[in-house]
């Protein structure tokens, strides 16, 4: 084939492509409403072949612009799925373009299927909540967060000034009534540097597990955290209004340090 011929062929292919619906149907984003090329890989990794749909029933609210890339506030709300597929079993939060994509997994148990928390972002990215109902189906909500970025690769304030070791795993907690009608809000903070492992000389050091148990030892919710959750995580959850009597917050970090604190109503 001469050079000219090949050029003509390529041109023809390009023209054909432009007018061919087959070509238009090739979608490298797996139907992602945010058009992210990372989505097919994320789906394969976290959802496998399980049935899934994108849905507005899962609200993910982030800031229009992440003014502080080390503390990007997110609010995930899957209450609209309470009557779907037996209700929400778990919520998994992932960030397409973070160096560590997993943020947290939340099992609401007795809590409402919603929570607020803050994360670090390395660059602008889609943020997803993958919500599994008890029938096994996945429901995915997403939002774009614009960011100047850099939040994963600089040390947090308490790492930078060394003060983290004096407060490690201290817990602050407070209940607030009726922020949502008929519900009791728990805001809980655990002091922890939550090092991502992406700052030179500072290995990953983060809280892995947290759960709230009542006086009888029954868990009310469970959380698994990963590196992108912000330093000194502050997590907001919604619990039933009745008192569990003698709540405790239990957990541990990836170095085996225990978290065990009373949470008084």
């Amino acid at each position, binding site marked *: 084939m001469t050079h000219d011929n090949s050029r003509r062929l390529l041109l023809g292919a390009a023209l054909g492509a432009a007018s061919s619906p087959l070509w238009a149907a090739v979608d490298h984003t797996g139907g992602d409403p945010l058009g992210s090329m990372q989505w097919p890989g994320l789906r394969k990794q976290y959802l496998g072949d399980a049935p899934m749909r994108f849905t507005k029933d899962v609200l993910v*609210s*982030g*800031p*229009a*612009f992440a*003014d*502080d890339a080390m*503390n990007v*506030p*997110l*609010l995930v709300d899957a209450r609209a799925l309470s009557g779907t597929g037996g209700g929400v079993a778990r919520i998994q939060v992932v960030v397409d373009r973070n160096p560590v994509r997993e943020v947290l997994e939340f099992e609401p148990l007795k809590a409402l299927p919603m929570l*607020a928390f*803050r994360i670090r972002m390395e660059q602008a990215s889609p943020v997803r909540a993958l919500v599994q109902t008890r029938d096994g189906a996945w429901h995915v909500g997403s939002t774009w967060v614009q960011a*100047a970025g850099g939040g994963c690769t600089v040390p947090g304030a308490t790492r930078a000034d060394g003060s983290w070791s004096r*407060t490690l795993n*201290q*817990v*602050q*907690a*407070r209940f*607030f009534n009726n*922020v949502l009608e008929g519900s009791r*809000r728990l*805001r809980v*903070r655990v*002091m922890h540097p939550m090092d991502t492992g992406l700052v030179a000389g500072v290995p990953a050091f983060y809280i892995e597990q947290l759960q709230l148990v009542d006086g009888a030892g029954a868990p009310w919710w469970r959380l698994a955290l990963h590196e992108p959750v912000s330093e000194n995580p*502050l997590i*907001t959850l919604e619990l039933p209004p009745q008192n569990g009597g003698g709540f*405790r*917050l239990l957990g541990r970090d990836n170095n085996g340090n225990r978290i*065990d*604190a*009373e*949470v*008084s109503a």
Partner: protein
Amino acid sequence: MRHLLLCLAAALASAAMAQSRPDMARLDYDLRPRQIAERTWVLEGAVEDFSRANGCNIINTAFIATGAGVVVVNTGPSRLYGEQQRRAIERTTREPVVRVLSLNLHPDYFFGNQAWADRPTQALQGSVNGMQAEGRAYADNLYRLCGDWMKGTESTPSRESVEPGVMQIGGHRLELRRLHGHTSDDLVLIDHTTGVLYAGGLVFANRVPTTPHADFDAWQASLVKLSQWMAEHRLRQVVPSHGPLHSGQGGLDQTRDWLRWLDDHMRASAERGLDLSEVLRLPVPERFQGWAAQPAELHRSITQWYPRYEQQVLGGAAARR
């Protein structure tokens, strides 16, 4: 209050007529000196947030041709601004520039300093220290926001520190005073000869105040002082760094009103148990809705400051087991 708002609206309208039209292709800020008092001109920035369309020129700079040399107030967001500012001044007066003041450490107060390398560039010592510490981070941010407008700009902190005090330069009795609250060192220039107050970042008009270095209580106290000084010295015009020039206390009152509201709003929200995500979505009162840089500047303030209010209501550490 309504009267004040009308004054501000009128000031804004007249400013709009003289409004420069930045030309992105030629990187021309189209700086137009507007005479506001005897031997006194301002170069008015857009009453907006930073953007490429406005060349990131959102600051008011000024110059006074005293008869014994020109005093320049603030040098703008970039090397190009400083150069164009210098040409604009040279077109307006033949007097040489004798002093270049930056009223605080924020980048648009001193990033034009490269154009004034052969003149005394001055600021309060605390501001100079801040410029040295934060200049590079400011540059990163402005290059990202403003693109080509920043070409060739390097953070060039003021070289000399100034002390508060009165100085007679030519026909003008100028007084420098130090306040704080918007930043830890807010320089205020009073021209007793013309009755113009150069309020720097302490006063915003029709624009959401910026708060990255704010101390809210100190800021309020400084606004009270400014208000007293205006009455005491019969200061007629206020040149805020951001927002339209105006006469009277309209800008002072707006800034006070905003800071009080923001403080109350964050405290009340934290006491209700709201998360930062929720606070970012709450509406602002109608009287603030039309202000420039809304809601971006509000969001920056809340993102930075709300966590402290949350921390206060969470209280002490729970008992460990």
